């Protein structure tokens, strides 16, 4: 029974420097793809040769303030070999797009639409890239770090409107990644805009 480490090493053997060394955390293996524009080939290889027939999840992370800004994590699973593997890739803010994997796994269609809706990352070659959770014509991408939790007022007649939510000084909670206890104290956080 192949383990995920063997499969990751097979992937690295095929693509060489494009794939990083597999990193392990809590029993899970993550490989980073250096060039996001080649995700299509890597995905096709994973499905066809390594047997990862199931895309469990595709999510985007906004590294606000760092470059590259967008990270995408594809969680793969093989129903035949019963192993997980995570593919991570980074996209810079200026480029802002990468190829779709919906021709490899059809479930990526909706996941990628959601990443586009929430973060604004575009997918080249996607059959139908439009907003899925917010309404068509909503001008912002809500899960970006510079978008406040309270939202911004918009108006689209006959479709939807939105207002700023009264937060009353909240959310009064810590910041993720605070380096010491002073940084981790809960305080009112004003959104950076």
């Amino acid at each position, binding site marked *: 029974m192949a383990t995920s480490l063997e499969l990751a090493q097979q992937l690295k053997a095929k693509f060489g420097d494009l794939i990083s060394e597999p990193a392990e955390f809590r029993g899970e293996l993550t490989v980073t793809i250096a060039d996001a524009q080649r995700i299509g080939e890597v995905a096709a290889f994973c499905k066809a040769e390594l047997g990862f027939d199931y895309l469990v999840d595709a999510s985007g992370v906004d590294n606000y303030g760092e470059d590259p800004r967008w990270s995408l994590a594809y969680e793969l699973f093989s129903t035949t070999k019963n192993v997980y593997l995570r593919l991570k890739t980074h996209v810079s803010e200026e480029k802002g797009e990468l190829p779709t994997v919906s021709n490899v796994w059809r479930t990526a269609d909706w996941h990628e639409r959601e990443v586009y809706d929430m973060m604004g990352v575009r997918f080249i070659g996607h059959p139908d890239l439009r907003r899925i959770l917010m309404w068509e014509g909503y001008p912002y991408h809500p899960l970006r770090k510079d978008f406040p939790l*309270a939202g911004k007022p918009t108006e689209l007649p006959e479709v939807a409107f939105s207002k700023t939510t009264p937060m009353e000084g909240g959310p009064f909670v810590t910041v993720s990644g605070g380096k010491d206890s002073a940084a981790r104290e809960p305080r009112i956080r004003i959104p950076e805009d």
Partner: protein
Amino acid sequence: MTQNAELGYNTKVEGEVVHTRVDAAINWFRKNSIWPMPMGLACCAIELMASGASRFDISRFGAEVMRFSPRQSDVMIVSGTVTYKMALSVKRIYDQMASPKWVIAMGACASTGGMFRSYATLQGVDNIVPVDFYVAGCPPRPEALLDALLKLQEKVSKEPVISVWKKAS
């Protein structure tokens, strides 16, 4: 002649004849057959369904006909979070209902937005429709919803009917 439009009926005096005012009779018909339009959006809809099921029978109060058609219903029970995307649909359905109509905002999300203080949630359905009763709870127990329904029945029984018709015509 009292201004109170409630049903005046004394069995010892009248026997099988009910001698009352038109207002009281009409309100009595209306309050005992309030047909809800369940705007069942989220978790409160499950408690709404539970109040329609056998344990907390809502049909004891005449309201088991949960018509999803706004034209045939009297009260709109907004149960669940109203998001901005859904808000205009709720408003449109409220506009399609025929008078007299009432709204019960069931649960914290429908009353004020609940625990979801975010960019996508309408902070209370009273921003778009006039609400008669707010039911607290997340989700409110079916008994709380039935309490709201009974208070709504009291409110309906006090409505001036004939004077409103006369003023309208």
